[in-house]
């Protein structure tokens, strides 16, 4: 239901003539052991935009994602969400993150896993776990322990979470991994639906990805 979080910080709700970008990076750099991992990086992601982060292995894609979620502190620069400085304490929940580890409990079913996520993050209006699972192609597997699903099905179970949660910004780290052609089309369909609802998404991929609905923005990281 809820957008209670967003109501509280009424930044999301205000509609200015030129709304601030949903997600913005300003001169963002990250250093590990004082060695630069990426950056300085500038980009802005507006409502309805999907951007693809490209780069080879080791170019810092995953690190960038973790910085954008707020789990890692950037070395320099800042991340802004809806025009306000982002920190884990103030704006958590406005972003949903899907990483290499899917965050699924293997002993729980897909439906039970979704119930936990909804409990933690809230649920977007007009969605239901059954519909979300059906949309990602897991109809008939709702109550199967995730342990018994294939790698691709696990990924789909994690993707169903995106449909249920109210977050407007999606950060997807390698969402295409482990998916067949049909699965890739599913991710693209989910992204287009999300953009159509006024959300924004940042997606990493080290391979070439073709979008049916127009070219996504590209952000290039150098190794």
């Amino acid at each position, binding site marked *: 239901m809820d957008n209670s979080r967003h109501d509280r910080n009424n930044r999301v709700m205000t509609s200015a003539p030129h709304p601030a970008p949903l997600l913005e990076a300003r001169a963002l750099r990250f250093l590990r*052991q*004082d*060695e630069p991992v990426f950056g300085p990086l500038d980009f802005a992601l507006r409502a309805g935009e999907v951007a693809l982060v490209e780069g080879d292995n080791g170019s810092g894609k995953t690190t960038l994602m973790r910085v954008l979620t707020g789990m890692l502190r950037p070395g320099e620069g800042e991340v802004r969400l809806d025009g306000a400085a982002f920190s884990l304490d103030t704006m958590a929940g406005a972003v949903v993150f899907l990483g290499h580890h899917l965050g699924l409990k293997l002993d729980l079913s897909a439906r039970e896993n979704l119930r936990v996520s909804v409990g933690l993050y809230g649920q977007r209006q007009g969605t239901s776990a059954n519909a979300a699972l059906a949309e990602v192609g897991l109809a008939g597997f709702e109550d199967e322990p995730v342990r018994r699903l294939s790698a691709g099905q696990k990924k789909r179970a994690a993707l169903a979470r995106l449909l249920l949660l109210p977050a407007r910004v999606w950060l997807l780290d390698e969402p295409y991994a482990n998916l067949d052609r049909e699965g890739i089309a599913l991710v693209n369909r989910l992204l287009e639906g999300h953009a159509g609802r006024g959300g924004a998404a940042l997606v990493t991929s080290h391979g070439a990805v073709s979008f049916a609905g127009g070219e996504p923005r590209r952000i290039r990281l150098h190794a």
Partner: protein
Amino acid sequence: MANWVPLWLHRLGSPPVFYRFAGAVRPWALGLALVLAGVALYGGLFVAPADYQQGDAYRIIFVHVPSAWMSLFIYGAMAVAAFVGLVWRIKIAEVVAMESAPVGAAFTFITLVTGSLWGKPMWGTWWTWDARLTSELVLLFIYLGVIGLYHSFEDRRQGARAASFLVLVGAVNVPIVHFSVNWWNTLHQGSTVRLLGPSHIEASMLWPLLTMMAATKLYYIASLFARVRADLIASESGKGWVRELLAHRDGSGA
């Protein structure tokens, strides 16, 4: 928090600045520590009179008491550095906290060994579950836990941050341990032997003791600075200032 604190710390907190500062201070601290320790040992072993009760055995206090004091003092210094490092994310403070731990553990160990050596002639036993000895043993475990945690991380800075956090947890814990051990002691034993009774101490015994305390403090500074310099060279080996330093050294050596 006032702005000047981080500002001042930031200036000294720059690794090359601290490296040079520590390098300048260290030989003086070490030299002075050795001189003072020599003077104190001479005063303690030859000048001070024998105790009317304990004979010559008491002379171990010139090592034992300053070590015991340092074991707590270093923990305090480490806790302050750990706090500064965690709050302001200053690398030097983290390094100072982490490199203090082995020195503090060494002093704690010396305290325990000399205490037990002293206990044999005084109490007739190497070890007794005296409140202070037990607290000191627990303190040694805390030091070892901090050192172990620091070294169990792949990433040095992450290890330093986790171990700094443990230092602060331990700082809360030490007084609680001391209190509980005291309580436990009164429950299980009558009164324990007092190490330093209320009897006032002779001046000729006092000055070597105080001199030794100054010497141990200076030794701590010297030892800490040497360790911090080594740590900085290792962790900043890719940095320009270390390269310059090495180039300069090679150049002057050739």
